[in-house]
């Protein structure tokens, strides 16, 4: 049987790279639409028809520049964007035939540029003005890149030893590997981006020092951990926070990987993160994966194509399922992670015909939504329920502070964070940085 087909593995890419032949054939299918719906559907408004035409004419370097000009994280977005609901979903060929593979074409161009050693951006002539950026995730990187491009200094501070934020530790492995995420960060650093790793704001560097060192501050701290759901047995070690689980998988945690082989994994949630967990667990060799959602499927916030993806990996979707109790598990075997003894759930709760079942789960993962980052509450900006209040241009309640990415949206795609960072940089330049030069000229 194994000779006839192969189950996908954890590392196997969902969207493998295109060969040159494939890319050219696909690029030549593009109609080069006027005022193209794909460009409109992209949060960063990449000129998609132009970059595809440039691939078709073998101007692949020019194509990459077109992409990066609008979205500096074009390489990672090519891999992680939910193109089915963005550019490709808007493609006019969808109804006629099938949409252009915009994501893979974008990857083709940006991979080429990276391999050819092209600079990701060209820093502008040095201007007076400096921005301190908290968080080296997609929003912070995009913000710093835009400032650098316009000639302003930007310094990113991140508490983690590795930059990239969720791109490095939080995206499903079959979409984006840490290697690819870190390569993108390195590409930015080669262009002059400054990142100070292992610096925790408030501990290693006080807010006062940060404010004193910079003319403005961009907050791109993302969200925090996933709170407990308040049921019996959830404090035991076989119960995971989805983000910790994904980070451990991506870091190659040997004990967790050993435990996943033949495991029975119950995931609680209904968003895209819950899909990332069930699908990765299945690919890591889990014998059984359940996705438990408390309401009907129409309320699930995960994209339909994501739900279909995990169903194709054998995940069983249980709707109207409420977790009641997690049973204690056996002691962890040597070289293995801790397990639970099962998960008691109530199916059809509130319908009057509910039944209680005990799933023979060996691992339970919570993917029920993050709370705000701990740092958010300490910052001198207005926030509500852990989320920073900011306008479309990242302006917060504090004129020196701008914010973007998940810490403002509560959790969106990488491409939204890339847009937020770029826009906030442009707003900081208009509001503050561009006036510094005039001010100093006036005082002279």
């Amino acid at each position, binding site marked *: 049987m194994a000779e006839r087909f192969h189950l996908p593995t954890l590392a196997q890419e969902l969207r493998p790279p295109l060969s040159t032949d494939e890319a050219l054939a696909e690029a030549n299918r593009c109609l080069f639409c006027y005022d193209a719906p794909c460009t409109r559907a992209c949060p960063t408004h990449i000129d998609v028809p132009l970059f595809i035409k440039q691939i078709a004419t073998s*101007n692949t370097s*020019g194509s990459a520049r077109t992409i990066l000009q609008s979205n500096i994280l074009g390489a990672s977005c090519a891999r992680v964007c939910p193109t089915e609901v963005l550019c490709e979903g808007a493609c006019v060929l969808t109804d006629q035939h099938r949409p252009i593979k915009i994501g893979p074409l974008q990857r083709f161009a940006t991979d080429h540029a990276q391999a050819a050693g092209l600079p990701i951006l060209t820093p502008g002539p040095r201007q007076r003005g400096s921005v301190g950026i908290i968080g080296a995730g997609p929003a912070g990187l995009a913000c710093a890149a835009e400032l650098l491009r316009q000639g302003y200094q930007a310094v990113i501070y991140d508490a983690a030893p590795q930059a990239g934020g969720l791109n490095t530790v939080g995206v499903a492995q079959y979409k984006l590997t840490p290697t690819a995420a870190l390569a993108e960060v390195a590409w930015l650093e080669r262009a002059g981006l400054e990142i100070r790793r292992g610096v925790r704001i408030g501990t290693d560097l006080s807010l006062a020092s940060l404010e004193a060192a910079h003319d403005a501050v961009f907050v791109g701290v993302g969200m925090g951990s996933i709170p407990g759901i308040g049921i019996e047995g959830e404090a035991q070690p076989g119960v995971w926070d989805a983000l910790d689980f994904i980070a451990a998988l991506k870091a190659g945690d040997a004990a967790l990987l050993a435990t996943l082989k033949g495991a029975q994994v119950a995931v609680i949630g209904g968003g895209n993160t819950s899909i990332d967990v069930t699908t990765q667990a299945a690919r890591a060799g889990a014998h059984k994966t359940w996705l438990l959602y408390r309401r009907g499927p129409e309320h699930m916030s995960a994209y339909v194509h994501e739900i279909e993806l995990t169903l194709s990996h054998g995940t069983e979707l249980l709707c109207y399922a409420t977790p009641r109790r997690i049973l204690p598990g056996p002691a962890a075997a040597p070289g293995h992670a801790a397990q639970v003894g099962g998960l008691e759930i109530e199916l059809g709760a509130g319908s009057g015909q509910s039944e209680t079942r005990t799933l023979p789960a060996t691992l339970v993962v919570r993917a029920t939504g993050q709370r705000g980052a701990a740092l958010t509450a300490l910052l001198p900006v207005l926030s509500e329920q852990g989320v920073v209040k900011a306008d479309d241009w990242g302006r917060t309640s504090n004129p020196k502070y701008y914010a973007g990415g998940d810490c403002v949206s509560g959790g969106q795609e990488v491409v939204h964070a890339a847009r937020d960072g770029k826009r906030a940089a442009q707003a900081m330049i208009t509001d503050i940085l561009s006036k510094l030069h005039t001010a100093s000229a006036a005082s002279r």
Partner: protein
Amino acid sequence: MADLSVDFCGIKSPNPFWLASAPPTNTGDQIMRAFDAGWGGAVWKTLGEPIINVSSRYSAVGYRGNRMMGLNNIELITDRPLDVNFREIAEVKKRYPKHALIVSLMVESKRETWHQMVRRAEDAGADGLELNFGCPHGMVERGMGAAVGQVPDYTCQITEWVKEVARTPVIVKLTPNVTDIVYPARAAQKGGADAVSLINTINSITGVDLDSFTPRPVVHGASAHGGYCGPAVKPIALNMMASVAQEVSIPISGIGGISTWQDAAEFILLGASTVQVCTAVMHHGFRIVTDLMDGLSNYLDSKGMGSVKELCGKSVQRVKRWEELNLNYRVIAAVNQSKCIGCGVCYVACNDGAHQAIGAAPDQRGRTRVEILEHKCVGCNLCSLVCPVDDCITMQRVDNFGDSVLPYKTFSKDPAAYPHVKSNRHDI
């Protein structure tokens, strides 16, 4: 970054990309939007005595699901009043002083009429004039357009008339609807033209509606022959470019199916100093100039060239007469089996359509495995042309003659002295 700016017989242009005299240059508004998009110059749609147009006017040829491989039109010169055109020319030139604005002219073959038209165009601010001796339909019957361009003496005569009064450079636009374009090109140069541009459109009927039996484009149950342009005509235009480039010493503006920067680079290599584009803009709009400029600039950079001028004409001397080609040179096809997808297209093409030099048989998995029969291969290229996989079939040089050249004119004097030439095909 390479410098894309050009000086075309004294006409300065920020880049070599001009809009050809055609519907995209019908109005000042269009030309100003084109300049905003990045076009370096434009040749204003031909001015002459007002005419009337028919409806419909265009028809096209597609290929395998792709639209507009070739475009045909029966539209005439401008149908807008001359004074409106001149007013707009003056306005465009005032707002865009650094762009090249050439005005295309076509009037009846009278010296005074030409003199008057030249003065009016130059007074309006034209940077140069293009004489339309190429329009193949409608105007010919009135003794204009190709009726002039097809007779070298007329071409020379009218060019002389124009040069008597012109203060700006004069470009003569040549028709391809002649036996040998070199004759009218020489006539233009003799008449004092500062440059030539080519090619104008080719006489064509693009197709016939199989239900109504009416050729396209349909004008109430009938049609007329039109002028063909677009990607389909490029190879014809390139050949004429090369012939004219070898023959005349004045600059050439290349026209004919240019849609991409590669097309433009090919025209420039064969001697064009500027290129003119129409069909690709009629298909996709002015915005295509972004990649035309970017692609050409990147290409020049990759070749270590600092300007368009360095590229100009580099391939002209590589176009030779057949009898000058080297009979010692021999290539045969080689298949990269690891890339072969087993489609068998090369086999059938060679077996039915060329020289029966490929063998084919099913492999263990039932897929077609092809093999070049090296003793039969004449090195024609066909298999490598039809193969759908890049670099799967390549042509490998197999002779041992290095740089030793044996042209036909040498060989033909004593064929017996070169037995290896006959054995180019071993089974004969």
